[in-house]
């Protein structure tokens, strides 16, 4: 096991080098002259040349790549053209909001997806199954940002049930930062009304973000459960007179979980992509919202920093799922 993790980590180093190469290439292709941008538009040619020299932009590409790499390793993701702040510190302040949203969405995805999948596998072709498959077909087809807008129209505007967006009601002071997750920080501060406020604000964005993933999860869970229920050991369990509830929820579920679980790692990636759209719809002050403004303002260091951090999270979550998978299913050897 340790050897496997070690091997995966060594492989990760190569993946990271690859990722940095791709991002460097994209960065290199960027339109406009970064030296001119850094110098400001009024700067004369001599000033621009001086800055180009200082930034090392007159050096050949491979030297520039090494500089880029060294900066990355130091955690230097460049400076935002607009705010003039280091991109990394902005990302640090926006990251918890995104992670909180993705965690909440993942929780909903797992709860709804697994439950729907199991229930529709228990009664294939019946009402629950039909509804769940309809939901899953629709969930995979609808654009997230559009669902978000419709949700705002129906649930916030017409029915006045949920807030339009933001992380808290305007005017409410956020809890002291401990984890950066408003819900958890509010609980730690034992401030129940604040917790409720944060939770209510999170509900719709998290549900929208979870929708396409829960659609996939319920579909996978259904087919996986159907397969498992036909296996010999389930028949044995039935033959020895175990209660059906125990057979399904204990014996069968354990094995049926394996297939949808492999997808969870990928789903983190899809959710990170989706959070960009959902956060911009709901003005959720996370990384996606930050990047959305970066895109509008053509603030390239912000866009590249966002891409880098999102990719790192994705790579690590996949690694985590792979390792977890080996713990859960001892039959797997790599």
């Amino acid at each position, binding site marked *: 096991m340790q050897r496997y993790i070690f091997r995966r980590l060594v492989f990760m180093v190569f993946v990271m080098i690859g990722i940095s190469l791709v991002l460097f290439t994209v960065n290199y292709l960027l*339109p406009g002259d970064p030296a001119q941008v850094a110098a400001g538009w009024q700067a004369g040619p001599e000033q621009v040349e001086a800055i180009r020299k200082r930034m090392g932009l007159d050096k050949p590409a491979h030297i520039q790549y090494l500089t880029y790499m060294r900066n990355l390793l130091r955690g230097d993701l460049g400076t935002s053209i607009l705010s003039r702040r280091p991109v990394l510190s902005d990302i640090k302040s926006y990251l918890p909001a995104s992670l909180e949203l993705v965690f909440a969405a993942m929780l909903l995805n797992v709860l709804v997806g697994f439950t729907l999948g199991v229930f529709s596998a228990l009664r294939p072709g019946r009402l629950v199954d039909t509804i769940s498959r309809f939901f899953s077909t629709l969930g995979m087809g609808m*654009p997230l940002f559009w669902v978000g807008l419709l949700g*705002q129209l129906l649930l916030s505007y017409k029915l006045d049930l949920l807030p339009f967006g933001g992380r808290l009601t305007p005017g409410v002071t956020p809890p002291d930062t401990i984890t950066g997750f408003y819900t958890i920080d509010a609980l730690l501060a034992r401030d129940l009304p604040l917790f409720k406020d944060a939770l209510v604000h999170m509900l719709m964005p998290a549900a929208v973000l979870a929708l396409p993933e829960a659609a996939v999860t319920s579909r996978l869970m259904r087919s996986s459960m159907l397969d498992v229920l036909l296996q010999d050991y389930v028949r044995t369990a039935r033959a020895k007179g175990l209660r059906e509830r125990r057979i399904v929820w204990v014996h069968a579920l354990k094995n049926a979980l394996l297939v949808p679980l492999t997808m969870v790692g990928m789903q983190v990636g899809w959710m990170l992509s989706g959070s960009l759209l959902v956060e911009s719809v709901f003005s959720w002050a996370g990384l996606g919202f930050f990047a959305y403004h970066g*895109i509008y303002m053509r603030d390239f260091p912000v866009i590249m920093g966002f891409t880098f951090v999102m*990719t790192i999270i994705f790579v690590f979550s996949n690694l985590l799922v792979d390792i977890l998978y080996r713990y859960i299913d001892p039959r797997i050897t790599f």
Partner: protein
Amino acid sequence: MTKYEAPAAVLHIGFWSRMRERGSEMSERMRIAFRRNPLGALGLFLIVSLMLMAVFAPQIATHDPYEINVAERLQAPSAKHLFGTDATGRDVFSRVVHGSRISLRVAVMVIAIAGTIGAVVGAAAGYLGGLASEILMRITDVVLAFPTLVLALAVNAALGPGLESAMLAISLVWWTGYARMIRGQVLAAKNELYVEAARAIGASTWRVVVRHILPNCISPTIVQATLDAGYVVLTTAGLSFIGLGAQPPTPEWGFMVSSGRKFMLDQWWWPTFPGVFITLTVIGFNMLGDFLRDLLDPRLRGIGA
């Protein structure tokens, strides 16, 4: 047990009778596939309608999709404007109809580019093996390490906003699936008798791969391409929504939702209808893809014949 398939040249004599036989086998399989997957018919219907809409867009549209008419701005759906009008008085229905051309074009282009890159990389990795395969597949792994939309966004931003750069950006992140699939197919086909036979009569590597191996990868590629088409439309809409991708005044569906979002509360029709069409397109391609998978599934061959 794999069925021995004689090279086409050997069975040249009975070509027409074989084609007839093929045709009846195909319709038989179609029948079975429809029975197994009745939603496939719906998918087929949706995608055929979409294609007809794209082809006959000028005839179907009631107005010019670019025509500005400030006097009739922000009107609710009516007999004159089926889906209402937007902030400059353009007819939303006509724009949605013309949008089908854009979405189909994007889907076809992206899949053509991504499929070609994937086929070249996958075939080379599968057939050459060794170091070449190792290098090509590690490159594939690196591209796969990125969340799709996030990398497409970075590339799109670097190339500059616009539908063409969005297409190129999506293609550049989308080829990995095809590369992996075709590599697998080539690896499986490499040791088949017909490949050995082709090599034995002195066919070049290029000829063996292009004429003998790749044609056998067509069915899974068609299935994958159909399933992907919907997600490409969805991804393009997403990029357009955040301001990359399509630019004004293009009647691209995602861009229409994006420009109508500020008017959602009072002029709901503007962003709502384009979203409905994105959804129908994605669902249509999904159902059609599932159906084609059943249809082209080799395990179905001979059932009920």
